[in-house]
């Protein structure tokens, strides 16, 4: 046998030995499926259901004077002391989720005016017939509830000490938009 042939055989043997040694790298695995499933998240939203949208809803003036309870156009008509004008908007709540809990709030409505105020503005849940305050809670039970938002602009009549506040005449002031907000909370 040639020397080179011996070398080839030796090399082949070595390769077999090495390959055989690969068995020590094996490991065993076994797995079983754990069934998953569909997991769905809920939702929280408030939608403007005012006829013609809240932005276009008409203002109404108080009924204490004539014309009583009439439509009031702030762009062309003027307020006098003692007047109250209101605008009513409707919203619908969509609240889905086992643990859904939310607060409702009216924010905004800032104004530079000193001659009127908006302190009477409020939210009312028509479905449950309850006013919504900062401590009220919206849950999934309130899904599809109708909420009424009322903006109240009050121009208070003078009293004995402000009998003639003529500085409030011929004033125009911007009342910025208010926002009704539902915010989800979780402990």
């Amino acid at each position, binding site marked *: 046998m040639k020397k080179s042939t011996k070398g080839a055989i030796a090399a082949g043997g*070595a390769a077999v030995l*090495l390959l055989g040694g690969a068995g020590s790298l094996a490991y065993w695995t076994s797995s079983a499926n754990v069934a998953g499933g569909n997991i769905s998240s809920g939702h929280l939203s408030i939608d*403007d259901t005012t006829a013609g949208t*809240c932005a276009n809803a008409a203002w109404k003036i108080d009924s204490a004077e004539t014309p009583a309870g009439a439509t009031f156009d702030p762009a062309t008509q003027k307020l*006098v002391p003692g007047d109250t004008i209101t605008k009513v*908007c409707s919203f619908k709540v969509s609240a889905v989720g086992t643990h859904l809990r939310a607060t409702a709030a009216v924010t905004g409505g800032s104004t530079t005016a000193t001659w009127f105020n908006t302190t009477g503005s409020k939210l009312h849940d028509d479905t449950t017939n309850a006013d919504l305050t900062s401590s009220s809670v919206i849950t999934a039970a309130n899904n599809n509830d109708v909420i009424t938002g009322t903006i109240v602009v009050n121009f208070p009549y003078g009293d004995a000490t402000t009998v003639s506040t003529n500085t409030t005449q*011929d*004033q125009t002031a911007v009342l910025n938009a*208010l926002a009704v*907000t539902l915010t989800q909370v979780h402990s």
Partner: protein
Amino acid sequence: MSPHAPRHRAATRRRLPRAAVGAVVATVAVVLLVGGNGSLAFWRSARSMSGASPASGSLALTPNPGCTSWTFTQTGGPSAWSGTAYPATTTTTAGTRYVEPNDTLSATCTYTLKAVGTHLRGSFTLVQPSGAPSGATATATYTVGGAAQTTFTAADNGKAVVATLTLALPSTTTSSQGASFTLSGASISARQVHA
């Protein structure tokens, strides 16, 4: 050992060690978990309730031209003041004649009414002059746009308001003989009301 063996071992060493493979898997898992941070959000839904630009109206009486001088009407004849003859009934300007009991002084004031506001409503009142003789009280009547009325609304905006002031001297006084008086401060007030 075969001289060719090192070549095979070199090929084996090109594999990543199992520990390194595990580290890579762990890193990928950590990245996935970090990507799950979106679950920290909370929900909020808001809708706008648009505001407005409310404007206030106004109320003013602007003299046009204002008030006349006081005139007085003498009732004539012998008065409670005996022994002095006064002219017969006549109207003249105060200050050039003497008044006597039961005489009437009057003045006319004309204004332009500014009354703006959907619910504007109010009435006129007379602010009594100072300096009048004791027992003499002024009264006033009003016309708005020619019609007698003591109240007004925004419908009367721009109309002329004429107030006729009357100051009747008492007929029985005896304490103001030889006195003079100056009427001042009489004015007409328009006041807005709201139920």
